[in-house]
C-alpha cells in the first residue's frame, strides 16, 4: 500500500473524551471503519443510521476516523483546529 494514498490528512488526535459521530450523508457504506475497529464494533451500521457510537466498549482509539476515506466520522467533542 502506498503511503501517500493512505495519508488521508486527518490528524490522529488523541482525545480523552468524545464519541465517534457519523455524518451519514457522506457515507457510501464501504465498511473500512468496521473492518479497522480493533474490538469489532460495526461502525458502518451506526453510520447508516446516523447514530453516534455509544458503546462503552468503544476505545475512542480513532482508528475508524483515521481510515474512513470520506471524512464521515469524527469525535463529537473535537475542538476546532485551524484548516
Amino acid at each position, binding site marked *: *500500500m502506498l503511503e501517500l494514498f493512505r495519508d488521508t490528512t486527518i490528524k490522529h488526535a488523541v482525545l480523552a473524551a468524545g464519541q465517534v459521530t457519523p455524518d451519514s450523508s457522506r457515507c457510501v*457504506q*464501504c*465498511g473500512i471503519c468496521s473492518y479497522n475497529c480493533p474490538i469489532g464494533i460495526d461502525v458502518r451500521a451506526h453510520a447508516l443510521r446516523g447514530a453516534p457510537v455509544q458503546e462503552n466498549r468503544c476505545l475512542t482509539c480513532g482508528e475508524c476516523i483515521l481510515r474512513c*476515506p*470520506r471524512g464521515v466520522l469524527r469525535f463529537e467533542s473535537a475542538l476546532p483546529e485551524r484548516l
Partner: protein
Amino acid sequence: MRRYVIIGSGAAGLAAAETIRRKDASGTIILLTGDRHGYYSRPGLAYYLTGEVPEKQLFPYDRNHIRNLNLLWEQSAVVRVHPAEHQLYLEGAKRVDYDRLLIATGATAILPDTPGISLEGVVKLDNMEDARHILRLARRGATAVVVGGGITALELVEGLAARGMKVHYFLRGDRYWSNVLDEEESRLVENRLTHEGVVLHHHTNLIEILGRGGRVSAVQAQEGDRDLRLNCSLVAVAIGIRPRKNLAAQAGLENARGILCNEALQTSHPDIYTAGDVAEVIDPVSGKPVLDSLWGPAVQMGKVAGGNMAGANLIYRKEIPFNVTRIAGLITTIIGQVGSEPAKTPSENDLTGAIMRGDSEIWRQYPDAVVTQTVGGHNRLRLYVRQATLAGALVMGDQQLSGPIQRIVREKLDIRSIHNMLIAPNAPLSDIITQFWRERQPAHAAFGFV
C-alpha cells in the same frame, strides 16, 4: 395483495424494497437482479482494489436483514417489459406479473470504440465482477495504462499503483478533472500522483490497443503531436457512464439520456417508477431534466419511489448536489456550484455526452465570485460567494470546516456580515468561516455534526 417488482439490487433498488416493506407488511416484493453478488457498496470497490478492505466487507447487510425484508429475490436479467399487460420477461422466457414496477437499473461504463477494445486485459470498473477481474490481471511490476478524466479513472490509477503496477495515466486535456477542479487543485492531485510513481501523459489520446494471442500487449497513442507506443499488459478505461435505459426505451416509456420521470419518480406509465443512476428527473427550478450519478441521491430516490409504489404521496426534492471523494489521498468535499471556468480543452463528458461517476451536472454553473485558499501545501478551500449566500464550496484535505460549510450552503445562511472579508485579496478564508460559525453556535456544539 399488491405485487411489487423491483429491477436492480443497487442502492436505489434496496432502498425502495426497504421502504415498501415498512409501508406494506404483506405485499409481495420481487427483486430481480442481473448481479449475482446482490447488494454491495459500489464506491467501496475502489478500496477493494487498493487493498484497504477485503471483498466480504463490502456487503453492508447480513443475511438476516435481507431475510427480514421477506423478498422474493431472483438473480436473472430482465429482457423485456410490457407496460400495458403489467408483465415482464426474464432470460429464458420466464414471465413475471406486477402491479407496481421499479426500474432501478443504474448506469454502466462507456467503452470507446478504439480498435483492440475487446482484447483480454482491457478493464472497466462498474461492479464486483470487474473488480475481481482487475485483481486477477494486476501484476506487480507490470505496466498498466489508465484512460479517463474523472474520479473512477483516478481510483483505477490508485488501485493499480497500490497493487504494484507501473501506471501510465492518459489525460485528454491539460489537467486532471478540469470541469470540477481548478488549476491549482488539479496540479496538487497530479503532483501527488507523480510522487507515487504514476506517469502522467497530458493531451493524450488512445489510438489503438495492440494485442498478442488475444491479450493486451501495448497501446498506440497520440501525445500532443508525437506518437507514443507503450508496452503494457492492462488497459483500464473510465471515460464516463451511460444510464441503462434500454428496457424502458423498448417498453415505450419516455426517455432522453435516462428514463424521464416526474417528481414522484413516476415514468410516463403511471405504474412504473424509476430511481437512481438511470432516472432523469425534471428539476422543478430549471424545468430541465438532470442526471446524477451519486450514491446518496440513489438511496433518496429509492425511498421516494418505494414509498409512492406503496401508496404514499412523496416528492423527490433534488438536494444541493454534494459528494465526498478521495483523490490522491485527499478527502475532497464538493457541494453546490463549483464549476471552474469553461474548459479550454474538451472534457471526456463533452465528447461522450455522458457523465462521470460521482458527478452531478448542477456543479457546472457559473458563480459570482470565487475565492480560494491553500494551507500547508495540500489543504484547499474554494468558495463560491454570492452577495448574501455561499453558492458552493470545495474542501480538499483537512475536513474540519466541511461540516459547517455544508450547512452554510445547504441552509443558505446569510453571510452578508463576512462577504467583504471573504472577497478581499489573500483573505484567510478558513479563519473567517471558523469565526463566523463559532459566533452562530453555542460554544460546545461549534464543530459537532447535527
